[in-house]
């Protein structure tokens, strides 16, 4: 009896978590998928109605903006964060004495809530009293930096704040990667008289492909889920200019009372995340038979 219990205890320990994941992740995804196929409005209805919600979604100009913004924001955010992160990591890798301090400075934004980040940048970018005023105060009377309230440019302020928050993290990832490159290989290259920049471009950076991959995945994932930052920085505005799928979904679900649209937009987000994460996870989990 005790042996039987002992034998099944591990399963019993894992079971509640497994059930929770089954219900609250997969069950809920199923629910949302179902509802996205119905005519639910203020209250969920469960009669399947086909892809009407998705047709409505992609016909909506607001979603059009939000979905387009996802690609503008996502692309710029990911690329700039990667490039900046790598650059900072290489600069920091030069055996400088104050490395610890500088690393701490670069990385602290990652500890902040995106709401705090948004609030801070909203103030810094405030056209009347922020950076614009500072530069004008220096004598450049015609300087304009009103991206925050400019419908065409506002999405780029989200990029700025996002990069500010996440690039230090990318730096930390890359720095760890740079440091884990086999030192003997580097020494061998130095003995061969290969210049420093060639050592980086030909040996170190290519060996960090997996880290690029991880950083890319994390950043894309952050970009797609971005919600807090937009809410705090621009509130989706001016107008709908900085809406992202995440804010669109939230607006439909909680302020517009359009559950069908909310579910449909959530499913599209899900599809985008899966398109990126599934191949990654699959390749990561595959060779690990332990």
């Amino acid at each position, binding site marked *: 009896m005790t042996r039987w219990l002992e034998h099944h205890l591990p399963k019993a320990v*894992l079971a509640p978590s497994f059930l929770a994941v089954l219900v609250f*992740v*997969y*069950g*809920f*995804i199923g*629910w*949302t998928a179902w*509802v996205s196929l119905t005519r639910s409005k203020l209250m*969920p209805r469960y009669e399947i109605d086909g892809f009407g919600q998705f047709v409505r979604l992609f016909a909506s100009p607001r979603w059009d903006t939000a979905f387009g913004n996802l690609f503008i924001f996502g692309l710029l955010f990911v690329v700039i964060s990667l490039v900046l992160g790598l650059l900072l990591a290489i*600069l920091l890798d*030069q*055996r*400088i004495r104050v490395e610890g301090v500088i*690393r*701490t*400075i670069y990385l602290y934004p*990652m*500890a*902040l*809530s*995106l*709401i*705090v980040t948004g*609030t*801070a940048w*909203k*103030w810094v970018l*405030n056209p009347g*009293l922020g950076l614009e005023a*500072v530069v004008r*105060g220096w004598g450049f009377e015609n300087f304009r930096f009103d991206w925050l309230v400019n419908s065409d440019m506002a999405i780029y302020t989200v990029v700025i704040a996002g990069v500010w928050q996440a690039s*230090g993290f990318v730096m*930390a*990832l890359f*720095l*760890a990667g740079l440091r884990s490159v086999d*030192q003997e290989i580097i*020494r061998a290259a130095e003995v061969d008289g290969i210049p*420093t920049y060639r*050592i980086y471009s030909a040996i170190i950076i290519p060996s960090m492909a997996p880290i690029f991959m*991880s950083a890319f*995945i994390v950043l894309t994932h952050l970009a797609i*889920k971005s919600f807090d930052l937009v*809410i*705090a920085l621009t509130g989706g505005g001016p107008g709908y200019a900085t809406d992202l*799928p995440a804010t669109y*979904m*939230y607006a439909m679900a*909680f302020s517009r009372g359009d*559950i069908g649209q909310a579910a449909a*937009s*959530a499913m599209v*987000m*899900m599809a985008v*995340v899966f398109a990126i*994460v599934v191949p990654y*996870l699959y390749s990561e*989990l595959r060779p690990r038979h*332990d």
Partner: protein
Amino acid sequence: MTDFSTANRSMPPPPSRMRRTGGVKRALLRWLLFAGLGVFALFYLMPLFVMLTTSLKSLEEIRTGSLVALPRTVTFDAWHTAWSQACSGIKCEGLRPYFMNSVLIAVPAVAISTMIGALNGYVVAHWRFRGANIIFSLMLFGCFIPFQVVLLPMARMLGLMGLAGTIPGLIFVHVIYGIGFTTLFFRNYYVSVPGELVKAAKVDGAGFLRIFWSIFLPLSLPIFVVTIIWQFTQIWNDFLFGVSFSQAGTQPVTVALNNIVNSTTGVKEYNVDMAAAIIAALPTLLVYVVAGKYFIRGLTAGSVKG
């Protein structure tokens, strides 16, 4: 777990990578390097600096002075207001009650999700049974879903459970969506514990729980620190669940901060906004400053699975 922390990396004195470049050129490069690093440091520090100085200025000085200037007269009025009087929506009780809400949410949610993660990780790493791999993959996968996809059903579920708009409801949500990561953390740490240790303990007569208690727990301090910090940062900084599943009175600090900043009643008090933002950020900043090494380890472990 692979130690990705860069903080405790020993730095042997191998030749500097820039040594072969000549003396003057080298000095110039060095100077450029520091200039570059300095400019970026300013970029990262500027918003914090601006927040801090703004929070210490009077509204009058904010309107007339420069954003980047130091306060002429330091005043803590804005901090007082932010803490106990600032208005979010119709109530004007400052951040304090919401700060307490966040504490009440974060502490139990971190504790529960970490304990569950430790046990799960122990099972997944050392007590494999048929299907354990699939269960783990499914849990891991759950970490990656955009939470928007569960917002609607979760809202209804909390309603059914009678937890809608309550702090226990938020604790529940954070625990549910936290165990994927905590399990991953502990699993990655525990797989590096040799399986022979478990076998030896079995031969010694210890069972499942005894082995966990006597052998694994004493080994686990570092991973507990990493996991607790990670979970605390996640939960404290959460906004999406907070704004979706709370109601007036149970909102966490991030939601209250956003409400204060965006409240349209009365004069816009930028100094109060900034003080409130700093207050909301303080706990996680503090954790970062005190235990940065573990914070980084959590970040890297969360993305570069071990």
